[in-house]
């Protein structure tokens, strides 16, 4: 019985047990490493929420730009609605400044056009357009963790 099994698999019981324990040891090791990574990812973040209220729609008259520096966003108000563009440079995270043609980063000179598209410098990605929504109390809410396709406007119901 035993020797028959040996012939079929071509591996002795001793080798099989050895390999099996080695495999188990490696798998448990990997599981422990995965656990350490998981442990170091906080379950609760005591950071500021990525969602925040920016006030009533009336505060954003058409044709204005508001720079919310501490939140790292620009709020644009145009004829077709509101949109929020992140002011965090996609290169190394400096805060970009508004220029006549778009945005410019003071750190390594990345340039973006009015829609946040990269037109110069080292920035690898366009500035993010961020989701705007409406809270039940009527004020507007921006979420810096929710990126939306460029060009999406938030329309105020009339």
């Amino acid at each position, binding site marked *: 019985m035993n020797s028959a099994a040996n012939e079929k698999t071509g591996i002795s019981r001793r080798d099989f047990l050895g390999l099996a324990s080695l495999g188990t040891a490696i798998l448990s090791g990997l599981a422990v490493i995965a656990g350490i*990574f998981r442990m*170091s*990812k*906080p379950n609760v*973040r*005591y*950071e500021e929420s*990525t969602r925040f209220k920016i006030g009533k729609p009336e505060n954003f008259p058409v044709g204005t730009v508001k720079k919310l*520096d*501490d939140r790292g966003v620009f709020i644009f108000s145009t004829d077709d609605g509101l949109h929020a563009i992140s002011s965090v440079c996609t*290169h*190394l*995270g*400096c*805060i970009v400044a508004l220029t006549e043609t778009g945005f410019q980063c*003071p*750190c*390594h*000179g990345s340039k973006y056009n009015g829609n946040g598209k*990269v*037109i*110069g*410098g*080292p920035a*690898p*990605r366009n500035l993010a357009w961020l989701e705007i929504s409406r809270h039940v109390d009527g004020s507007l809410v921006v979420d810096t*963790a929710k990126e939306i396709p460029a060009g999406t406007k938030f329309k105020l119901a009339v």
Partner: protein
Amino acid sequence: MSEMNHKGIDAFKENLKSIGASLAGSLFRSGRPASDRSRAAAMFNNFFLHVQGVKTHINTLRPAYTFGLGIASLFLLLITILSGVLLMIYYNPSIENAYNTVKDITYVVFGGKLIRNIHKWAGEGMIIFVMLHMARVFYTGSYKRGREFNWVIGIMLLVLTFGINLSGYMLPWDQLSYWALVIVANIIQSPKEITDSLGITQYFDIGGFSKEFFLGGLAAGKESLTRVYLLHIMLFPIFLFLFLGMHFWRIRKDGGLTKPEGFEPAGGDTNLVTFPEKRGGIFPTNKTYGLMELAHGRTPAVDRDVENTVLSWPNLLVAEVAVFFLCLAGVVAYAFHINAPLKELANPLIPENPAKAPWYFLGLQELLSYSAFMGGVGLPGLALLGLALIPYLDREQHHAGVWFTGGQGKSVALQALAAGTVVLLGLLAFVIGFGWFRNWWPNIPQLLIVLVNPGTIWVGFICVVGPYH
């Protein structure tokens, strides 16, 4: 009865009187070294000295061979550790307190400013000395003949030295710290440039994952400072000690430092070292074979050259003590006059402009302004890999232990330096004068920007031209 008492008390008095001598005797078991035998015992009976051999080769003791650069790096490390422990008395690694405690250390604590300066300058001095030490090892071909892996360990030590310095830079939580942290976090995130270009970021966001792992959150904040502190005072030092232990152990097993083949003592050496009282005796002049050396295969201590060695006590120790005091004096004098910088409290709203990397990363910072990934991950990785592979690419086993392998090597080294510098300056001048890809073709794919920039071109040039030498 009372007489006996007297005797006991007298004996006790005697013991008390000699306590100093007997304590010293138990501490330094071999007594004051007076003969060659006790000088040898002084080395191998002492915990701190037994790491070194009882005898040292004359070549090793010539100041212009090593310039004491490795040992100077070690002493700077010791100074950094000691001053760092003192700083820890007051430093508090929380974003509410870090800046204020560093400010207190600088302006309120007695001696705090000096200790902080010493810590800062000894730490950064390590970078200079470790690099010079590496250059010495390289130009004397000392990564050869069994020392290949010790060179690789050396590269780890170099990386750890940079890591400890950079993590320390972030601890004061001033503007420099904060923006360095933000930039490093974004470099860690930069593999996103590649995954984005390939369109696989949704499935495999290694950049985002690593950034969150490093920061302990999505943005630089309190968790991040805790983690950087952990790296600075625990993880990096533990690995540094581990690798240092291996570094020194291997030097010992390799039979000490490299020395030229067919070494002959020169006239000047007699001014430098004291030769043993007599040759022969317990120190045979001809090579003896230990059991290990009779075994097959390449053995440790292969190129021991017994004739041209002298006792480490006092020859080596005197040299080391001299280097130590030079280091200490240099650091204290520098720290006395030059203050470690402390900017305003970290402010996430106002980027430091220009966001200044510490001086030892200025080169990298320049590369970063083409592509965060190439400059911060790709090129440094390639450079380190290239450095680590040197002993495995250069298999030539001769000429180890001589500066520039004699005269010809010197001119090659100079040519390489000149060519590299010219091409580098040319590239920089070109970029400053004419701009780079995106100024010409704004829609160029990011992958091209990552792969082709002055940094990669320069490395390419070195790779193509290098092997011809």
